[in-house]
């Protein structure tokens, strides 16, 4: 099931990349996708973690929200970089990742890193170790909204 969906995704990517839509190149595209799926199956890299079909409905909404957060956080961090004097106060702290699967934790960790101001520096079973640039970013994260949203992402499917 995941192999088929990976094949379709790969073919869509091929169509985006290729730009030549003669029968020969469509055929080569199908052939390439087949080769890649066979190699991927051999590498055991196709499963619900690497190809999360079950999340495809809920991901776009999450990305929109994340995009908004990224813009806000960027503006905050840029202000801190530009302002003279003591605008930063780095700290390291742990937050609990409420997701029960590894994929959820990875999404959470990467979302944290994508939002400037906070970087995931370690994953320790259920805890994420975070380096934050300032109290504002720290408080944002500790309010737990992102955690809630990522958890909802996994449960909603």
């Amino acid at each position, binding site marked *: 099931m995941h192999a088929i969906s990976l094949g379709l995704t790969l073919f869509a990517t091929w169509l985006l990349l290729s730009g030549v839509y003669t029968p020969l190149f469509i055929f080569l595209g199908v052939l390439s996708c087949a080769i890649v799926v066979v190699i991927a199956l051999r*590498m*055991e*890299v196709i*499963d*619900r*973690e*690497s190809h999360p079909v079950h999340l495809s409905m809920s991901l776009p909404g999450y990305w929109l929200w994340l995009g908004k957060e990224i813009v806000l956080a960027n503006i905050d961090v840029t202000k801190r970089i530009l302002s003279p004097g003591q605008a930063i106060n780095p700290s390291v702290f742990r937050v609990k990742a409420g997701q029960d699967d*590894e994929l959820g934790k990875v999404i959470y960790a990467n979302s944290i890193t994508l939002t400037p101001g906070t970087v995931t520096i370690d994953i320790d079973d259920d805890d994420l170790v975070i380096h934050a640039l300032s109290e504002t970013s720290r408080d944002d994260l500790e309010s737990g909204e992102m955690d809630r949203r990522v958890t909802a992402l996994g449960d909603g499917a």
Partner: protein
Amino acid sequence: MMFAAATAALCVAMLLALLRACLGPTVYDRVLAVNSFGTKTVLMIAVLGFLAGRPDFMDIALLYALINFVGTIAVLKFFRYGDMARPGGRPAAKGGD
């Protein structure tokens, strides 16, 4: 004109990243600076594609992004373990070490 200004801005940012890569002080600072430099290079290639009127450059930009990522991972693995062959667990979902 617009693209030339963007290229100039990228050049300034690349110089700053290069400065950090030279200053160090730790090896991780340098890796971070080089990674950031690579990101800017990708953008630079994309802009140059427009500047030169050759949209083929996008393929090269995509390729550079790819190599930048794999290169960073390789360098980090080397500095962390001093060896590229260290086993890292199976790819399957629950099989990691």
